[in-house]
């Protein structure tokens, strides 16, 4: 009963949809990384307000299921006058959510930076922003690369949820084809294989970056 022809026929469409999966998940990780850096910096700052905001942000976006966050941003925000299109709601929510996780990952990296380095940077007169972008973030990224890669692969998989706000991506198209052809097995296996390849590629790039930026070499 296994229909190879159906796979061959659907593969171009599924690959097209998987491009959207990659675009949505990687752009949300990129935006989320900036959010995460700021939230993390606020959490480690001496400002009480900053620490409070950071703690609240992380606990909200980590504590509420992503699915519910998506539904809120799409269906509830219009009521307070914020009517965003599907794709914006999808990328925005994914970015805000992953930002919370990335902030926590980066916090581990920031705390691993020897305080002497920061003191030295301050001594040579670098501004706070420069210290953050030139010293702390690069070092924190190096220290936390495996976890960052892990979070990126998690977001690729999490992007399968965004169809609830009317965005087409790999999982949604696979479901649509499966129910239209009444042959779910072949389609879902193919979709699963595509996710596996995408995440395999991300892991490979991560592994390469890890060996390239190993801290021992940098020293």
């Amino acid at each position, binding site marked *: 009963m296994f229909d190879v022809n159906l796979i061959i026929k659907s593969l*171009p469409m599924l690959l097209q949809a998987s491009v959207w999966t990659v675009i949505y998940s990687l752009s949300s990780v990129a935006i989320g990384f900036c959010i995460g850096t700021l939230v993390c910096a606020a959490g480690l700052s001496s400002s009480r307000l900053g620490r409070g905001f950071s703690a609240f942000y992380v606990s909200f976006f980590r504590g509420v299921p992503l*699915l*519910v966050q998506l*539904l809120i941003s799409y269906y509830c925000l219009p009521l307070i006058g914020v009517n965003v299109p599907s794709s914006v709601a999808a990328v925005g929510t994914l970015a805000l959510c992953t930002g919370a996780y990335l902030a926590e990952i980066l916090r581990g990296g920031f705390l691993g930076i020897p305080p002497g380095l920061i003191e030295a940077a301050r001594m040579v007169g670098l501004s706070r922003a420069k210290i953050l972008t030139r010293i702390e973030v690069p070092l924190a990224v190096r220290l936390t690369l495996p976890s960052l890669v892990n979070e990126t692969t998690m977001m690729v998989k999490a992007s399968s949820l965004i169809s*609830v706000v009317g965005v087409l991506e790999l999982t949604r198209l696979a479901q649509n*084809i499966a129910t239209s052809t009444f042959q779910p097995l072949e389609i879902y296996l193919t979709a699963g294989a595509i996710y596996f390849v995408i995440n395999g590629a991300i892991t490979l790039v991560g592994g390469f970056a890890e060996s390239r930026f190993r801290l021992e070499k940098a020293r």
Partner: protein
Amino acid sequence: MKTLTRRSAVTNALRVAALGAVASLALSGAALAEDLLAKAKAKGELTVGTELQFAPFDFVEDGKQSGMNKEIFAEIGKELGVKVTFLDLPWPSVLPGLEAGKFDMVAGPATITKARMERYRFTSPIANATVAILKKKGDASITKPEDIAGKKVGSAKATAQLAQLQEFSKTLPTPPTIQEYVDFSQSYADLGAGRIVAVANSLPNIAYLAKTKPDVFEVVEPPFGKPVYFGFIGSKSEDAKSLMDAVDAVLIKMKHDGRLAALQKKWFGTEMSTPDQVTEASF
């Protein structure tokens, strides 16, 4: 009930979440008051929410939307002078999206039931949704719906079709064993594999399946369920009234000039007579 929705855990989570969204929507009351028809005409675009997993009404063929909805709405768009844009969402998100004003109306279609009529306004029905039996091609042991007595029959969880099957089973001397599936496609697969001998679902859906796979499936006539109809869905609010009236006028016109019958013939393989308006649902 158009609940061709599956993946129990995910779906249930989604339902709960969607319900939550609806509840909060209901609490905050009506949002923007603007006549939908005037707005669509000004914009030149009518936005319709639907789910592309409900053949023969809405499904995917070669990566594109196909089915009866697209063709009916093409006629509606022509008559109203607007372009029709479809938005595909999982069914549990479709009705909350209508209430949040994300689209002007919903295609679906959905079975016109009493409970739904309380909350939504249905268009003039476009098809008969009465539940019938689908069997394996050439199965001589089932020639009428009553023949499923004592046999193993499938339907989809939490659907109006299942509810009707259960009601019908009680009237039989030996009730059939009912196997509940997360979605209808799995029940068709099991019927094909011989794990069950029949599937109960709305007539247009199984008629389409029997038409696309004539050497595998066959419909058992007549339908056994209470007579119900499929209609498109809109909001009951004041700003949706002129739009829904206009859509109704087009659909009724299509019924009288034979365009709807032609589409029914094309997609179900048979014509179906439907009333101009369902004022009271039987279910």
